[in-house]
């Protein structure tokens, strides 16, 4: 089980719904790896840009150069941003864990169990570990907005795989929200300006995001991935 956090290369599939910040997570993850002097590549995948429609982003993260391109068909890590990805099949692969490699990690944003008996059997056979917590509630409690759900999910994952430091993440989050190099689509830019008004200052937004990430890092530190349990659950 220990090699879940000691892989040379992580193929990460992020499945969520439009508006949850799936693609933004991929960009920040990529920059975070770059800041840490490591390597990343990323690909977003979505249909029409709209709320509640399936969105997936794929990130490859490694301590070595990455040659691979395209969508991640065989992931080591799956992040599920919304329970409907599982319960309504809102993902580009059905079931959502299709292609999951043995000894891998799934992080699910939900307060209730969304895996049925068949899912549990397959995932146990693959020696998977599922970390489940209500990331949206954590984002609301800590940052005052559910829009920081993606930060909670990303923080939990980075906390578990130990590839980067909090500082690397902070630089990447700063680049995303305060920098000028990121070109966002119209919808994303509108969302950004809505967030801006809500928080008055982008610096404050940055701090809230970092608070969420720090919190999930603490939670990740308390997790023993060598446990025999399939599902590790946190109450928020």
């Amino acid at each position, binding site marked *: 089980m220990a090699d879940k956090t000691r892989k040379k290369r992580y193929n990460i599939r992020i499945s969520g719904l439009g508006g949850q910040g799936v693609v933004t997570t991929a960009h920040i993850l*990529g920059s975070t790896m*770059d800041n840490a002097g490591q390597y990343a*590549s*990323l*690909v977003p995948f979505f249909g029409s840009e709209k709320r509640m429609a399936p969105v997936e982003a794929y990130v490859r993260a490694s301590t070595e150069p*990455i*040659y*691979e*391109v*395209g*969508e*991640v*068909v*065989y992931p080591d890590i799956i992040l599920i941003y919304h329970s409907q990805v599982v319960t309504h099949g809102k993902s580009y692969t059905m079931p959502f864990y*299709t*292609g*999951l490699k043995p000894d891998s990690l799934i992080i699910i944003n939900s307060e209730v169990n969304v895996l049925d008996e068949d899912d549990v059997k397959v995932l146990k056979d*693959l020696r998977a570990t599922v970390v489940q917590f209500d990331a949206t509630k954590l984002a609301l409690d800590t940052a005052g907005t559910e829009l920081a759900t993606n930060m909670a999910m990303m923080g939990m994952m980075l906390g578990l795989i130990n590839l980067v430091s909090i500082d690397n993440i902070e630089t990447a989050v700063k680049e995303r929200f305060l920098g000028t190099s990121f070109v966002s689509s119209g919808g994303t830019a509108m969302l950004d300006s809505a967030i801006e008004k809500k928080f008055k200052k982008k610096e404050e937004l940055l701090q809230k995001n970092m608070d969420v990430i720090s919190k999930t890092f603490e939670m990740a530190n308390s997790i023993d991935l060598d446990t025999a349990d399939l599902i590790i659950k946190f109450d928020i």
Partner: protein
Amino acid sequence: MSPNPEKKLEKTLVDINYLLKEAPREKHFITGAQAMAEAVKRASVDMAIAYPITPQSEVMHLVGDIYAQGHIKEYYRAEEELGTMSAIAGAARAGVRLFTATSGPGLLRGLEAIVSWPGHRVPAVLGILTRVINAPLSIQPDNIEMAYMMHCGAVMLHAENQQDTFDFTLAAFAIAEKVDVYIPVAVATEGFFVTHAKGYVEMTPEDMALNEFDPVAAPVPAMDNETPPARIQRDAPVQKSNFMSYLIHAVWQQEIWDSNKRAMKYIYEYLGGPIEVKNPESEVFLIASGCAAAQAREAWRYAQEAGLSVGLIKVRAIRPFPIDEIRDAVKNAKSIIVPEHNIIGWLCKEVKAAIPNGGIVTEGPRVYGGMTLPVELIMKEIHNSLGLEYDLKL
């Protein structure tokens, strides 16, 4: 659109050898579209003509931006692809350095004009940012359109990643303009997987550019448009149904394909050769080009880690096809796997035709419709070739 003389930028002009091999480089994390446009910026391009089609649009949009910044003298959007490619041929007669790019269905729409470029000795550079053609409509990467390009005489390079896209595009201008070549060079790479994905690119300085185009150093002279009457066509038309017309066409096409072959020495000089070989003593070889080469390289790395005897051949030049080089590289191979991003397997056919024992070639894995080519599928073929089990769950 009017020229941009007031925006003429001061640049240090250097030859291609210095630019590609000696000039200082700085690392940037950019998309493949940016990499191609950045190469155009450093190539002293006189004129670019565009017609948008996804996923090429980003390249020609960025080329439009660098026109506005003064790096290019002329730029305009044509009425559609046939117009674009015809205008490139027309502009070539004025003796200028030309660039355009297209994708999938756009390439097919412009193909009638494009395939006349080599015969008309048009030394233009054509970016091909690959995309699905045929129905049902899709905008995803699939490099089947390259098969349609292979038989017109143009030189064709296939870039694996953002870095290749930058280097190949720069080299393409120099290769196209060699007096003993003087035919178009196409630089292909996969749409989205390269054009819209970021990778590290070592780039030369922005204020350093390739020596300007010399229209006098050409096997066919540029037209003198200032002194009427200007000739409409540089060479006599071959329209009469007599023996001479057949002969003229045949001789001319022989010369075009010889020009194509003569490009090989410059592919050696500027790009280090038409193929890259890893582990030449291996029994099993992966042979791939473009993005499939990136996937094959990853599979090759996994195979090294697992201690499997696997070699990798990346094919940089599709035309001229490196027949002798591949034949020599795989002379001791027991099996060859050719991963591809298209349904017909054009590279596989080329490889089979190049070697005397084509039966050792495994066709595929192939993905098409723009799907990604999972490294795991290549690993499965490697294990099959070595008689080993590979547990691939889907």
